[in-house]
Every structure is written in C-alpha cells, then in structure tokens.
C-alpha cells in the first residue's frame, strides 16, 4: 500500500490561509479563531488535489475541512466568471436526515460569506434522496446544483438517470461521510461500485475525501474510500488521523457488588439509582443501550421512577421511531431542553446533538471501537475531555467492560470487517451498467475490480452473474425467461435488454432488506412488541420465545396479531435465529481470554493483593474489583477458569437431556460458526438431533446422549468450512439471508409492474428453491452469495477456522468437566440463552420410524 501515506505535518494557520482565496480567508477569520487539527492537516492536502481520509472526533470541524476548499474553488470560479451549470462537488452520507449537517456546514457558511462576497449566492446546493419529488428533480436537471448532497442509494439511481447523470460527468470532488458506518455493510459495497462507475465517466479522476469516526485499520478503510488503480494497488491517499487529540475519561460502574445473590428487583432499583445519580450530576446525558427494546425499557422506567424530577426531560431515539419523533428529540437535545436521551445505535452517527457532557453505556458495547465512538459524542469542544461511564448489567458484562475500558484508554481498536465481493450487489450493479451502454465483458470487469470491495472477485463468478441475469440459467431451451440483460458470450458483450429494465432498476435498487413485523399482544391485550412474520410462522402453540429481553408463551395468531402469555420464568423453546444483539468482537474476546488467564494465575494470592493489582492496572473502583474477584473465586471453586490454550467443556446433566457448555472465547460471530459446525458433526456421528445455544462467551450443545472426551476431540478433527456449509443447508439463517440476497440480486423484485410484492410472497418456499438450485445449478451466484454472507459477514469463519485448527493441532487442549448438576458461574449465561439453532440429522428416517412405532403401539395398547 505504498500510495497510502499518513499526514504528519500540522500546517500553521498562516500556511493554510495562504492556500485560500481572500474571501474565504476573511470569512474564516471572522468566524473562527484557529483552524482545528483536521483542518490544519487536511486543507492543504485537499488544496493540492490529494485524496484524503480524515478521521477525527465529532465537533472537530471534519465536514468543513472537506467542504472548505470546494467552496474556495467555487468562489474563484465565480470571480473569473467561469461557474458552469454542473455538479462540482458530490457529498454522500448514509443518513437521510442530512439537513442538520448541511445547514451547519454549508448553508450557514454560504450565508456568512454573502456579507463579504455577495456573488456567492450563485452557488446552488441540491439534495437528492428518496424524499426528493419528481418536480424538484426536474428543476435540478434544468439548473444542476453545484454541490449535490445525496445518499448511496439515490446516487446509484442518479447515475442511471440518462440526462441528469450527464451533469455528474465533470465532478471534481467526492466527499463520503461516515465511512466507518458504510464500509462494514452492503450499503458500502454498493456505494463503492457506484463510485467506480461514476469515476469511469469522468474525464479526469475526481478527488475523493472520506470522513470517518474512529476506525481501524485506517489503511484498509482508505483503500475502501479511494478504490484501486488499474494495476490493482490502491489509488493515492493521505490519511489525516487526529483522533488522539481528544481525551476520554472512561470508568466502569457496577450498580451492585453481587449480581447473583442480590434480588432482581434490588439490582434494578440500584441500577436506576445509579443512573439517577449520574444524570442529576451532569447537564445533559446520552445513554446508549444495545437494543431498541432496551431503549424503550430504560426510558419507561426512568420516567416512572423519577416522575416529578425529570419525566418530561427524558427522550428516546432509535430507528424504529418515526422521523418526526426523532427530529423533535434531536432539536430539543440541541437547544438543551433535555436532561437525558436514551438511544441504541441511531445517535452513533454524526447527527448534531449539541452539548452532551456525559455518555453512559448501559452494558458493554461489545467493541472498543464502538465504545470510543459512542463516548466521543460527549464533550463540547475538541479540547474538552469526553466522559463515558460503562454501567454493567451482569457479571460477564462486568469482566468484559473492565477489559474494554482498559483497551479503550490505550486505543486498542478492533479490526473492521469489510464484506468481500458480494455477488448480489454486483448483480444489481451489472443491471445498472447494462442500462448505461453496451459493454465489453472484460472492460466492465476492469471497472468492477477497481472497487476495493470487488478487488478479489473472480472472473468465473462474474460470468455466472452475467449468465444468470441474461436468463441462461434455465432448464429448457425454448423457455421465455425474462432476462434482465442482454449477454452475447461469444462476442464478449453485454448490454441493455427490454424496456422494463430501467424501471425495474429504479424501483428495486438498494441493499436494505424489507421485513414484515407482526404485533405481539399479551393475553391482557397489552402491546408487547414486534416479531418477524417468518419467525411467527414457525411457532406452535405452547412455544416459548424471547421478546424484549423476557420470555412469552405463544398462544395463537389472529388478524395479523400474535397473542402470547408472559412467562418470565420459562426458558425459550424455539430457536431465535436472528438477534438484534450486538456481537462481541473477536479481538476483544481474545483480550478477555487473556484477562481470564491472568486472573487464573493470580487467584492463589491474597485477595487484597489481587484487588490492589486490579485497581492499579484497570483503574476500577473497589466495588468493581470485589465483584470481579468474587466471580473468579466462585468459578474456580466449582469448575476451572478457562485459559487461552484450553477449551473448557462442562457437562451438565438435566433429566433426559445433556448439555455441553463450550467456553470458547472467540466472539459471537466465530462462536456461531464453531457451534453449528460442532453440532453438525455431533449429529452425524451420533445419529441424533442437537440443539445449539450461542452467546458471546461460548456455546452450548444439548442432546439426548452423553459425550465422552474422545467424542469431543473427534469433532475438531475435521474441516470446519465443509461441515459448516452442510450444517447451514437446512438452517433458518441461510433461508433468510438467501431471500435477502434474492431481493438484492433482482431474482425477487420488491416492486414490479405496479405491484409491490409482499415479504410473504417473496418467501414462497426458499427451502424448496434452495434444494432445487442445489440439484440443478449448484453454482448459482445468488445462492453462493447467501452462503458467503452467512459465513463471512454474519459469522466469522476466518477466526473460527483459526481457533478450530488450533484445537485440531492440540495447541488448544480440551478439558472436560463431567457430571455437573448446574452450570458453572461462567457458563450460566449461555445456559439460559435461547436456542440459536437446531441441527438436524441428515435424514429423518430414524425419527419418523420412532414416531411410527410409538403411534402404532398406542393402537396396540388400546387393543
């Protein structure tokens, strides 16, 4: 990555001002004292035409850094009378609610510059999102905005608008905001291809400016922003990293010393007392929970408990709330009308929220990077310290938070995961490309390979998409399958087909899947929450499921409503194959594993000595240290403390079912992969069905027979990848992700011919479709993508493989503790977690024959 470098030089204000037109310089001088660090480092680089990735804390003037030199250019053009009717600057943000940022970062400066240079009013700003009316779009075509503000989805559509896209062909600067939130999902993949498609059409490559919160590794994120040169190496990019400038004050707070013996109601009241104390002693507090339902719960309780005190001063902000509600909360927050706002992920991004002096993280945010991003939302100015408090919810959370806080102080960031070559998004873009012109197959491939996300895509996979889209995948030669593109494989060309395709592309592009949720009501007709329709379809009366952190028994569905009974003490009986819980990151899990080992080495020492060490090393208070030591002491007296080179397996016998708890500390995504693979192998070796539960700290396998140490060792003496694929074959997760991939890859059109196809219809029977595809066309690209997405994105096959092979090579040794009556303290959380999947035997024969025998014997008994 020789062309990616780090900016080292902090320019003096004078140096920066010298690069600017007197108008802009004067305006800046009037309104600001000095340039902020990202401005001092970034503006001159931008002025020199470099691609840059700027990563800096909120409130450091990042967005203005990106825009300033573009404004400068526009001023110069106006002065010379050269300002043309075309787009000069393209700004892309994942947020649709862009107005706030734009108001602050663009319209205000323009308004202020007007006082110095009235002609600046010639600069037009246009917003193009899914809310933009056709009328406004038509206006934009007649008088194109000089600065176009848009989202990744709307940009992809603009790119295919025959006339409007012409106004984009001379863009000079592309600004991509919130890169950290885009790079790790398919919205980012989609954008990266749109950028390459746009770049191809621009005569001289436009400058790219990426803006990101704290993220790691910067090299890779920079490559994602700038894409690749023809030679396969990243285009030039200078990274401006000024995250170090903002200090963070992070502490772990445990509301109680003992989570086990303190009654739940008391834990709860202590928790809210803790929150009250923190909220009362600060001006404005931002509270992050890890789920939307937790957000609702916390707001509800806070309002209830502190009615007189500040019930009206508390707001909720999460993605399920309406745009109006969210905007109202944002505005109240900005003007200081709220004492506290509770949110899940929606306020992580750079929405302007005004003054916040404390961030509370309720429960570990599961990654150091996310913790730093969230805590970074507090502290008014760049020089003010950000203050974050991690309030822990249980004992595993406690250990996790201690380790996380320490690593946050030393900024040990986890590695970001950027999806590799998703074939569904590629299919969508190829349809888009076919509308642009007639392509040579290799020429188009060159464009695609320029996107960092597709640098590894194989030519074979690419061809299989062309074949799929052109309708070549069909059983019969004389069939009229509507192809979406025209593809001449002999002459290596593809292009547009049919009049419908353009409309199809407009109506169906995008990467965010639809879900249909059904409302769930308690037996006393109280609304509880929502469940996905496809989940409800699997429920049988009497099944116990999880919703909003507690359990309910399914009674029936009627009129699109789910009726359920609150049964807080029952354990869930049905697999919940999706979860809105944030997964523990692998890198942090490894750190926790190290911490466990260091504690294990110390436990023989005097308690006061351990305490002293913990307080000094982890900067925790006495209460937290006590709780930590107690937890480890209990674990070691009952079982053993798992160490880095040991896989602790605990056998818990319960009636006619046996549980095996695997303490594999590799993060949720890797655990997910390992648990299903292990379960699959156990299923085939022992001819019985197996239940899998998984959480951040390990997994549990439940089955009707007993396993010996050699049975367990045998499990890992296999290839994880092959077996995981087989394990996924009948799983709910593959069906679900396959359906999403079908929609993204245009196999299923959400909107077509004036119809809007419901999720229900989208489902028809993906299980049968998968089975038939496997039989007739095993290489079908959309199915291949579903497997890739599940294994690489939803799960973490790479780290799972490393761990698996260490066990295989005996570098990690299995330790089996037999005959436990109840799980060890460390195993408790996975024991009570819901079932994540059921791994079925390869054939149903055994089960059906048993069933048959039982039924026949019922007749025989009756005589």
């Amino acid at each position, binding site marked *: 990555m020789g062309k990616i470098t780090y900016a080292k030089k902090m320019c003096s204000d004078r140096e920066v001002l010298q690069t600017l037109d007197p108008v802009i310089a004067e305006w800046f001088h009037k309104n600001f004292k000095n340039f902020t660090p990202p401005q001092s480092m970034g503006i001159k680089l931008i002025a020199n035409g470099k691609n840059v990735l700027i990563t800096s804390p909120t409130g450091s003037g990042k967005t203005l850094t990106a825009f300033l030199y573009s404004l400068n250019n526009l001023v110069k053009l106006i002065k010379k009378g050269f300002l043309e009717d075309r787009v000069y600057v393209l700004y892309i943000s994942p947020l649709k609610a862009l107005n706030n940022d734009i108001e602050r970062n663009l319209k205000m400066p323009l308004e202020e510059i007007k006082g110095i240079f009235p002609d600046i009013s010639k600069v037009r700003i246009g917003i193009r999102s899914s809310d933009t009316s056709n009328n406004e779009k038509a206006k934009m075509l007649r008088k194109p905005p000089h600065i176009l503000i848009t989202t990744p989805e709307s940009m992809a559509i603009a790119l295919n608008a025959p006339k409007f896209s012409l106004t984009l062909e001379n863009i000079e600067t592309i600004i991509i905001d919130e890169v950290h939130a885009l790079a790790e999902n398919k919205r980012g993949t989609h954008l990266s291809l749109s950028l390459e498609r746009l770049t191809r059409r621009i005569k001289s490559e436009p400058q790219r400016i990426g803006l990101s919160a704290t993220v790691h590794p910067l090299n890779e994120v920079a490559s994602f922003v700038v894409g690749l040169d023809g030679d396969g190496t990243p285009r030039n990019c200078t990274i401006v990293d000024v995250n170090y400038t903002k200090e963070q004050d992070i502490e772990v707070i445990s509301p109680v010393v003992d989570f086990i013996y303190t009654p739940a109601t008391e834990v709860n009241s202590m928790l809210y007392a803790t929150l009250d104390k923190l909220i009362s002693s600060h001006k404005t507090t931002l509270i992050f929970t890890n789920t939307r339902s937790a957000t609702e719960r916390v707001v509800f309780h806070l309002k209830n408990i502190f009615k007189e005190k500040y019930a009206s001063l508390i707001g909720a902000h999460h993605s399920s709330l309406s745009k109006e509600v969210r905007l109202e909360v944002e505005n109240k927050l900005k003007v200081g009308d709220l004492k506290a706002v509770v949110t899940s992920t929606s306020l992580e991004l750079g929405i302007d929220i005004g003054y916040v002096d404390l961030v509370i993280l309720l429960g570990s945010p599961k990654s150091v990077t996310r913790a730093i991003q969230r805590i970074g939302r507090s502290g008014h100015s760049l020089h003010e310290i950000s203050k974050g408090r991690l309030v822990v919810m249980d004992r595993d959370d406690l250990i996790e938070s201690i380790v996380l806080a320490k690593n946050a102080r030393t900024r040990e960031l986890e590695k970001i995961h950027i999806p590799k070559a998703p074939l569904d998004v590629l299919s969508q873009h190829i349809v888009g490309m076919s509308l642009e012109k007639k392509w040579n197959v290799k020429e188009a491939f060159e464009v695609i390979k320029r996107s960092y996300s597709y640098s590894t895509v194989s030519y074979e996979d690419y061809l299989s998409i062309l074949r799929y889209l052109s309708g070549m995948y069909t059983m019969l030669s004389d069939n009229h399958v509507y192809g979406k593109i025209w593809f001449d494989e002999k002459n290596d060309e593809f292009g547009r087909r049919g009049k419908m395709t353009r409309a*199809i592309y407009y109506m169906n592009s995008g990467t965010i899947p639809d879900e249909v949720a059904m409302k769930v009501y308690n037996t006393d007709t109280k609304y509880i929450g929502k469940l996905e329709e496809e989940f409800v379809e699997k429920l049988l009366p009497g099944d116990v499921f999880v919703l909003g952190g507690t359990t309910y028994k399914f009674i029936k569905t009627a009129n699109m409503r789910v009726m359920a009974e609150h049964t807080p003490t029952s354990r869930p009986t049905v697999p919940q194959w999706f979860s809105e819980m944030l997964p523990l990151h692998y890198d942090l899990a490894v750190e926790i594993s190290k911490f466990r080992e260091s504690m294990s080495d110390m436990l023989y020492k005097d308690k006061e000595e351990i305490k002293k060490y913990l307080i000094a090393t982890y900067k925790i208070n006495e209460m937290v240290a006590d709780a930590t030591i107690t937890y480890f002491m209990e674990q070691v007296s009952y079982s053993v403390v798992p160490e880095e080179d040991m896989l602790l397996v605990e056998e818990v016998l319960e009636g006619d079912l046996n549980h095996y708890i695997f303490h594999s500390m590799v993060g949720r995504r890797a655990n997910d992969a390992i648990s299903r693979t292990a379960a699959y192998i156990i299923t085939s070796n022992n001819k019985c*069905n197996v239940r899998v539960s998984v959480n951040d700290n390990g997994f549990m396998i439940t089955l009707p027979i007993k396993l010996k140490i050699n049975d367990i060792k045998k499990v890992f003496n296999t290839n994880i990848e092959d077996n995981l694929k087989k394990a996924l074959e009948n799983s709910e997760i593959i069906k679900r992700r396959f359906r999403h991939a079908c929609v993204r890859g245009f196999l299923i059109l959400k909107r077509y011919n004036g119809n809007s196809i419901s999720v229900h219809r989208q489902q028809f029977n993906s299980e049968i479709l998968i089975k038939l595809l496997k039989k007739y066309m095993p290489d*079908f690209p959309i199915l291949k993508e579903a497997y890739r997405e599940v294994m690489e994105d939803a799960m973490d096959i790479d780290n799972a493989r490393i761990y698996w092979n260490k066990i295989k090579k005996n570098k990690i040794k299995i330790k089996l503790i037999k005959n436990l009556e109840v799980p060890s303290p460390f195993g408790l959380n996975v024991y009570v977690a819901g079932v994540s999947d059921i791994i079925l035997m390869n054939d149903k024969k055994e089960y059906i024959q048993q069933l048959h025998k039982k*039924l026949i014997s019922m007749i025989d008994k009756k005589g």
Partner: protein
Amino acid sequence: MSHSKDDEYYIKDINLTDRIKITDQYVAIVDNDTVIVADIHLGFESVLNEYGVSLPRFELHEVMEKFTKLLTDYPIKRIILNGDFKHDFSKNSDSEWNEITQFLNRILTSIDEIILVKGNHDNFLSTIAYRMGVTVVDYYDIGNITVFHGDRSTERDERIIIGHEHPSITFRDRIGAMYTMPIYLFFRSSEILVLPAFSAWTYGSDVLRYPLTSPVIRNKNIDEAEVYGIYENGIVDLTTIKNIKKLIR
C-alpha cells in the same frame, strides 16, 4: 391396510382399500391401472415471474421426472389429473401453453387416456386441453369411486378422492427439531381420501394448525382421519390425527 413392522423399512405403497393404493409418489392408484394426481400447479414459476420473481424453471423437469418413475413402477393405463393442474387463475400465458403442451405430449406417448378434472385454478384450461384432444370434466367416476377436486361442495358424501387441501403435518421432537411431511388423509367411515399436492413447490399446509377448507370434508371430524406420511424412506402409517395429537401434546 398394510403396514410393515419388520426391519425392512422402505415402504413403497399401502393398500387403503381393496381398490385404492396410496404411494410414496404423491398419487393414489385405483384398480392397479388408474393413477390419480392432484395439484400439480404447473406454471407456478411463470406466475411468480409476472410478480417479478425470476425463478429458474425447474418445475416441468421435476414433474416429468416424477411421472417417468411412476410409469415405470406401476402398470398404468389411465391418468386422472384431479384439479389445479395449472396454477394461474386468470389466463393462459405463453409459457403455460408451452409447458402444458410439452407435458401432455410427453405423457400421451406412453399413456392411452388422460382425464382432466377441473380445479379452482383451471378456469382457462379447457382451451389448451381442447387443442390436445383431452377432455376436461367437473368430476369423474371410476365405478363407485368419484374423483373430484374438492374446491366445491358435492351431493355425494362417500367414496370420493379429492385434492385441493395440500395436506401436510409438522412435528417437533423434544430437541425442538421440526419435520414437515406431505400426508394423505383418509376418512375410513365414508371412504374419502385427500391427496397430497404433487407440485414441486410446496410441502403443503399443516392440518394441525390450519382448518380444512374443502366443503367435502370441512364438517368432518378430523380427529378420526387416518394419516399416511411421505418421507425419504417411503410412505409411513401415522395412524390417526387423534393419536398424533395425543402423542405430541
């Protein structure tokens, strides 16, 4: 009725009465030479296609494969397609013409007689069938057994073979594993048989969860119905709905 208690588990077919045999191939065979097939739903893919779902076309291939096996396994002279032969309600699309013509042509090379019993999806079927020289009827009698799709009511109340329901059953074992299998339902007292769907695209709907819809059996006590399931190892006697309910409770 014959069911096997020995260790030779694979069971190809079961004789329900002295005239009716049910098989693991989703069809009933009457008097050894007449096969009754319900709910093929040919053209399902092209209907979905019109809704923007571009499935690869497997269906005709699957159906032909199943028929070829059927014709080798049994000495069949006559085929009765018991309703919903094609999926589309409203019109005959090009690809349906095509698929249906291909299907009938191929079947007619090895079979003397095809009878199409109309189902609720078959409104426009006559047009196609007429060109092929195949008759379409509302019901068909084989001796005292009536073959009827089951979407409407009938005056008869015994010895009927219907389709329309797409019956299946879902079990869950103690681990939580789900098994869905297509089933035959047989009301012995009135000798009414409900066939599973032949379509490649459905497992059917669970009779334990959803009420029966056909007027022919809607008012019958489903608990009394005998159940025969199809799975990878043939056909299996699951006794009655009443027993199954008792067992899974």
